[in-house]
């Protein structure tokens, strides 16, 4: 029967074969949990999550929405596909869990619960993450309606405020785009660190020579596939060292789209993408050329006739003078001359909202938790080791004050403080 269940699980993923490296799922639903079948996937959840609806499926997990019964809030729950299929998968799951447990900022989408129906570390095979479900994302909002300048200011301010925190923790988002900006009906914004992207961030930051996984992620992240409309040109030009201003470029593209109502650089492929960028911001100056390491790449791009930077006033007739000024400083080809997140937060366009001491940065404990590899992790080699580590992370979060913290989200602090 256990084997049959395992085969069923494998068969539910069309075209993909997964060897079962771990113990069979528990036959008995543990106390306090209930079981739900949803689109051929079995969910075993605490009893306070109900009314499941499917949301999406990806390479590493499946997501549904559910109602948190005590308050009626809807949440998003992600169930990992076989987190212990290999030590690479286990390592990814562990680091994602650790990172999400660590980051905490009201403009960054965060984990509010994590659970497993498995009774102990040795039998751990199912891991679920929970986050608040925001009503929509910026991509969908822009499909439906044009926003007022006041709304745009509020949205952009919150995106930059979230970025300030992420950057202070040593993380570059690298994939900011409208669908990664969650928005609710109160115009509250949370920057969404996509799950697959998190793994890349974790790996690249820890600088572990995990070639198979790092390279696979690198191929996805360096501008080759999926959405590249919001990606900074230096990423596409294969610069060796990105800076945090790659995210400022993305915000500039988003701001331009919010103001004009259409994408600014909708490239058909990576070559067309660069063509469209230069047709607006102009061909590079000499100091930019010298930063491109590859002579072949430089020669390739230089074949193009010189282009003068377009007049943004003409390009964005609906934009206010302050919005134009900020756009000019964000959409600069040379990342060394591009405005930083901190400076952008102080720009006049956002003056109604800018309060530096209410724009928190990550505490040292957060930064240390992200950059430090703890001894147990360093020693981990077997799946059993990773099970123990992940089990501990789950327990740590479940015992923390942050679990289901959205239930009482009132701000009781008199003074803004470092998170």
């Amino acid at each position, binding site marked *: 029967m256990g084997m049959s269940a395992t085969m069923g699980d494998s068969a539910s993923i069309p075209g993909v074969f997964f060897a079962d490296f771990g113990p069979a799922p528990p036959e008995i639903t543990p106390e306090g949990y209930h079981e739900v079948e949803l689109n051929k996937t079995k969910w075993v959840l605490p009893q306070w999550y109900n009314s499941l*609806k499917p*949301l*999406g*499926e*990806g*390479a*590493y997990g499946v*997501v549904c929405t559910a109602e948190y019964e005590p308050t009626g809030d809807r949440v*998003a729950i992600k169930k990992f596909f076989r987190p212990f299929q290999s030590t690479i998968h286990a390592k990814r799951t562990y680091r994602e869990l650790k990172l999400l447990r660590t980051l905490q900022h*009201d403009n960054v989408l965060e984990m509010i619960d994590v659970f497993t129906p498995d009774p102990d570390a040795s039998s751990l095979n199912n891991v679920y993450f929970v986050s608040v*479900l925001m*009503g*929509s*994302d910026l991509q969908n909002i822009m499909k439906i*309606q044009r926003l007022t300048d*006041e*709304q745009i200011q509020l949205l952009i301010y*919150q995106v930059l405020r979230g970025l300030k925190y992420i950057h202070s923790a040593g993380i570059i988002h690298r994939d900011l*785009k409208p*669908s990664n900006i969650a928005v609710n009906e*109160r*115009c*509250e914004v949370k920057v969404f660190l*996509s*799950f*697959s992207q998190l793994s890349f961030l974790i790996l690249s930051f820890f600088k572990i020579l995990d*070639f198979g996984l790092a*390279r696979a992620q690198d*191929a996805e992240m*360096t*501008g*080759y*596939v999926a*959405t590249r*409309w919001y990606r900074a040109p230096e990423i*596409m*030009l*294969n610069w*060796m060292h990105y800076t945090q201003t790659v995210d400022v470029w993305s915000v500039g593209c988003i701001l331009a789209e919010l103001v004009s109502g259409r994408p600014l650089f*909708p*490239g*058909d*492929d990576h*070559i067309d993408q*660069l063509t469209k960028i230069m047709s607006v911001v102009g061909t590079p100056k000499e100091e930019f050329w010298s930063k491109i390491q*590859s*002579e*072949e*790449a*430089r020669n*390739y791009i230089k*074949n*193009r006739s010189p282009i003068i930077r377009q007049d943004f006033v003409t390009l964005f007739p609906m934009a206010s003078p302050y919005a134009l000024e900020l756009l000019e400083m964000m959409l600069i080809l040379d990342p060394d001359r591009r405005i930083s997140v901190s400076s952008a937060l102080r720009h006049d366009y956002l003056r*109604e909202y800018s*309060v530096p001491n*209410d724009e928190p940065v990550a505490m040292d404990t957060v930064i240390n938790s992200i950059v430090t590899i703890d001894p147990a992790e360093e020693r981990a080699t077997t799946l059993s080791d990773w099970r123990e580590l992940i089990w501990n992370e789950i327990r740590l979060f479940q015992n923390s004050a942050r679990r289901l913290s959205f*239930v009482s*989200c*009132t701000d*009781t602090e008199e003074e803004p403080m470092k998170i």
Partner: protein
Amino acid sequence: MTTHLPSTSQNGEEISAEQFNRIFHERNVIVLDCRSNGDSVKRANRFFCSLRLPALLQRRLMGGSMRLSTVPDLKDLNNSPDQCPEVLLIPGDSEQDEQLSAALARNLKSNHYRHFVLGEPVKTLLSQFPTLRDAADENWNTTFQMNSMPGQASGQQASSGPLLNLNQLRLEGEDQGGKQRAEFPVKLTNFLYLGNAETAKNRDVLKKYSISHVINVTSNLPNTFEEDPNMRYLRISADDNASHNLTKFFPEAISFIDDARRNDSACLVHCLAGISRSVTICLAYLMKTEMCTLDSAYEWVQKRNASIAPNFHFMGQLTDYEKMLGLNSNRVGTYPSSAPRSPSCAIEAAAVSQVGGLLTPPPTSCSASPQSSNHSAKSFH
């Protein structure tokens, strides 16, 4: 119309539930609801929730650093006095909410807006005037239109449809270019296939397409079946960055692919993702053997797999290779994807003339050195 006395309260004129209902339906008003999200009122708020300020905005208002009219939903407060809506304030039910109410009242007063404060519990208001519940419920799904109330004289249209699209947390981004990523291996000619890491280790796929030759353009992926006497491998050790020169490998790669063609079998060219390095090798082969421009070769491959993206370092090398081959590029001042599409693409014409067969053998013989080829290719046993 009941005559209202001038406001004598620091925090605006207190009104009864009955007055609230009348003003709501008769005048141009904005309702500011300052109640919190506590458990006890969470569900109640669903039926009467005209404005919920984000915590960030609440702090800005209480800090005095922000004008009330800056709140997106309160834009109408910028109107001239005779067109400015009046404000109905529902005070909070906790200490913190009281602070917000007071901040809002101060803000309204200092900017000379006329406002009224509900002096009775919301429960009383809703039980006496159930239509308010229905009216508010309609507005629940019109995010960003919360300043448009049914009783408003202007008859402003609410936006159409709720915004609660649950596309958040998608794990796979939608390709906004609308192109589909091809399944590997991608057939470029009858004997040339483009693949990724997965393709190269799938014996069934290799057999299905008669692939006996494999070019592995990575430094770290294994030649999975190199013990098989029927398989031949050519490894080109290259990483996908700006420090590798693929040009010097073009001749032996071309010779290797031609060897598969002459033996009536097929060659797979793969790297990790099948996007940059392997594509570069395939483009070089097509340019050399079909004597076509980089534009034409690029378009040929892209039609079969939209997700190709040789990095610009490799594109530069291919441009140099094109010049070396003496091909007419027509590319002064343009990029491949910007060039006008030629209706007489060389490969397309060749493909049409070769129904069911191989492409025409190249007019120029391969320039690869036999010695170099033997040195790099794995020999038969």
